[in-house]
């Protein structure tokens, strides 16, 4: 019977007799007999690790991974970036992996300092002074952002660009059922948010995406102006790689920055665990969701780190808390600190630049072919959207046959009737990372041109 239990049968007997019991079942004597599972679990018996490895080989064989059989041109918050072995080696150290939340700072300076460094990096990339220790993912970061805006303004209407990732919009919508927030989605025109069309009043937050999920780098001035006019908070959801070269959320006047931190050293991993980035202005500090690490000193005056402002947290505030997040994504935050430490100031800029170069090269080449059109005339960064002559799902299927994960269909992301593009069923968002070579892009373009026929 494979397991990880240390107890020998003799030890079990001794322990039981110390307790005055004779069988393991006796430990559950006070559990009403009627409730106890009599027939055991309806589940196959245990198997040794090598046998289970065989089972898992069956799963992996039924996937097509980007590492081997598919060249990845899909993005949407989940990017195929290079993760160097050194980053894996450091972030997988078992002291980081098998630690709990750093409640005892004396023996948790490792995780605490790594988070402090992470907070600093995210704060800088956001251009905002406060960053928390992580949230679940980009989508749930946005939920916390609108909740924070509600807390700050006492209002419940959230005005959100249709350029925000459709899944993020959906998640905000889901949680609004509990908080009672009212969501107003602002459509895009030619890839750009039509902020002028907003008529809502009593608005808590204006939510923009930079770049938006179609890839367009929108001017955020109108969003900032709208927020100011309405006395609402400006929330910017951003691509954190682009954030190294584009104007920061802070520079655009945002009150809150949220983002999906997967590009910072976390593999595609079928969507999780990822990393919810969250930064905000000093004014919102006391409403900050999740954990925050701060610097202090120990009794000998040595610098030390500790989780701080705990009074905000759910374990203290209970029903008065504005967020319920407890376990977050610390290991991914540590990983991000390692990856950003590896890339450094210039490395991250170089990655961002190469993404943009690759995307623009791919876009230009695709535009040479009939049956492929740009979804908008706007400037983009590392992702762009094309309208295809053939249905998007057909095109993507044909591309897969040629060895490419060709992008994400807008219809699959947002449904058939989204207000972000004219025809979701013929729109594909294509992403390019620093890993893609010219050779791969050229082959992709050729396959794409064939696939749309």
């Amino acid at each position, binding site marked *: 019977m*494979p397991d990880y239990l240390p107890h020998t049968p003799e030890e079990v007997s001794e322990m039981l007799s110390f307790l005055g019991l004779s069988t393991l079942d006796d430990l559950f004597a006070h559990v009403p007999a009627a409730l106890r599972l009599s027939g055991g*679990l309806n589940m196959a018996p245990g198997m040794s690790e090598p046998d289970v490895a065989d089972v898992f080989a069956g799963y992996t064989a039924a996937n097509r991974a980007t590492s081997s059989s598919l060249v990845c041109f899909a993005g949407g918050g989940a990017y195929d970036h290079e993760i160097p072995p050194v980053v894996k080696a450091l972030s997988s150290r078992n002291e980081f992996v098998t630690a709990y939340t750093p409640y005892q700072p004396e023996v948790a300076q490792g995780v605490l300092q790594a988070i402090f460094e992470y907070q600093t990096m995210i704060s800088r990339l956001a251009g905002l*002074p406060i960053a928390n220790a992580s949230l679940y993912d980009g989508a749930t970061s946005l939920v916390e952002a609108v909740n924070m805006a509600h807390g700050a303004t006492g209002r419940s209407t959230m005005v959100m660009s249709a350029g925000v990732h459709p899944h993020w919009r959906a998640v905000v919508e889901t949680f609004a059922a509990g908080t009672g927030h009212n969501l107003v989605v602002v459509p895009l025109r030619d890839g750009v948010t039509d902020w002028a069309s907003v008529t809502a009043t009593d608005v808590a937050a204006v939510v923009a995406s930079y770049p938006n999920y179609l890839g367009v780098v929108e001017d955020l001035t109108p969003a900032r102006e709208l927020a100011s006019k309405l006395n609402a908070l400006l929330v910017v959801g951003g691509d954190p790689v682009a954030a190294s070269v584009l104007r920061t959320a802070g520079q655009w006047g945002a009150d809150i920055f949220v983002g999906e931190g997967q590009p910072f050293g976390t593999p595609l991993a079928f969507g*999780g665990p990822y990393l919810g980035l969250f930064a905000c202005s000093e004014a919102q500090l006391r409403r900050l969701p999740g954990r925050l690490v701060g610097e202090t000193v120990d009794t000998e005056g040595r610098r030390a780190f500790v989780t701080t402002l705990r009074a905000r947290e759910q374990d203290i505030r209970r029903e008065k808390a504005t967020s319920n997040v407890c376990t977050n994504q610390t290991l991914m935050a540590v990983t991000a600190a390692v990856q950003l430490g590896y890339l450094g100031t210039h490395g991250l800029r170089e990655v961002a630049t190469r993404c943009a170069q690759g995307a623009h090269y791919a876009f230009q080449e695709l535009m040479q072919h009939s049956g492929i059109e740009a979804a908008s005339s706007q400037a983009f960064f590392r992702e762009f959207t094309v309208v295809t002559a053939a249905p998007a799902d057909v095109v993507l299927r044909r591309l897969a046959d040629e060895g490419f994960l060709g992008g994400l269909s807008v219809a699959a992301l947002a449904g058939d009737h989204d207000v972000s593009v004219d025809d979701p069923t013929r729109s594909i968002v294509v992403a390019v990372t620093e890993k893609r070579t010219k050779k791969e892009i050229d082959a992709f373009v050729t396959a794409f041109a064939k696939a749309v026929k």
Partner: protein
Amino acid sequence: MKKAMPGGRASSAPLLGSDTEPTIFEMSQSGRRAFQLRTTGVPALPLDQLVPREHLNPTHVELAEVSERDLVAHFTRLSHRQFAVDLGAYPLGSCTMKYNPKFCDAVAGDPGLNSVHPGAPAHLTQGWLALLCDLEERLCEVTGMAGATLQPAAGAAGELTGLLIMRAYHESRGDQRKRVIIPDSAHGTNPASVTLGGYEVTTIPSDERGLVDVNALRAVLGPDVAGIMLTNPNTVGLFEEEISEIANAVHEVGGLLYYDGANLNAILGVVRPGDMGFDIVHMNLHKTFATPHGGGGPGAGPVAVASHLVEFLPGPKPAMTSEGTYEWRTPHHSIGRVHGWHGNAMVLARALAYITVHGGDGLPRVAQHAVLNANWLRQRLQAVLPAAYDRPCMHECVLTATGIKHNHNVRALDLAKRLMEKGFHAPTVYFPLIVDEALMFEPTETESPQTLEALACALEEIAEEAVVDGDRVRHAPLTTPVTRVDEARAARQLVPTEDAAERV
């Protein structure tokens, strides 16, 4: 510019010294680098030819500039300044810090799982969908439920998801309900989730047994009660023996029962929440199913529900078609997405590996030995640290230091801190709030009797020391990389980033 700190000095590694470790920013030297990027052949046009100049940040966002060698040294030293399950016993109550099998890490490290894009169409990800379906089935069997969502990224996310399902259920019946009942012993996430779920919290007191007072419960029940959130065993480690009565009472007023699965390790394969009458259950895979806590996450908090709630589950969900292939389906009355993609997939894969290794025969053994260890420790410590409640416990025991505090002015926190100098992580202290000077020990099933005995001896020594040299205990720990930290100053004089540090 400040002078860069040396990356190669190891005096912060506890092996060598007790200095502090510089931050990576302090080690940074302009012009230094670790990164290497591949050759792509893509035309390297300058950025301002690709993106309108007004979008470009005129200044550089400074990260750190370090060599790969110093990067490695820095994070390796930080890792040596961190306690972890892999170093020794971590008996934090309510957290289930059991051994995390390396095998499950290896499973999650397979590129065949790890390198799959979450937006890839279902026909390219059949393996993942099958895996998720298989996990859902196992989790339903363990909880006695009919269907589950794997999207929630942690326990608290599961709680809120469950409450939104509860809300959607009541609303689908045109039933506007207002309140959710929670015992005073509950974990803080429970009331917070209730609030975010749009309900009011009604707190009921635990009785002197440490259990739900069924009469007190009955007193607050009514047609405006949406449901109750319970853990069972509860947060003091005791099994709510009257759970059937509780379930009947709540169901009678049309309420639903929510099971906070943080303590599921105690009853795995022995009793099932569904059989106790619960309608909604979240699990903390990072507790019960041994996925590593990662220093505070990632976790996974799947929510399983009884059949009448299956159509409200978040979507899309993986499902098997009649041809035996897999597809994504959204339940008819789905509350919608609760995660940007499909949940913390690699955590889910690890948990399935753990479950498959144990199987139907192994999982109950996990619970049995977890409960055995906790009861043994509770009994063994009776003379030194009495249990808060005089009843057999389940997988954890809550002890109280009231006596020691009263007699020797040594607090639970002091005992916990001193324990670390004896080679064990501290237990959870001051939780649950209803127990004075609480010390909550959850040894888990993976610690040996020898380790438990050593832990007990260490506590005995400390209790003795509290009598003869209380200051030593009150000032502990002295041998750790840092001694007690000034938490008040951290909050008062907030330095949440290196940049704030520079301003201070």
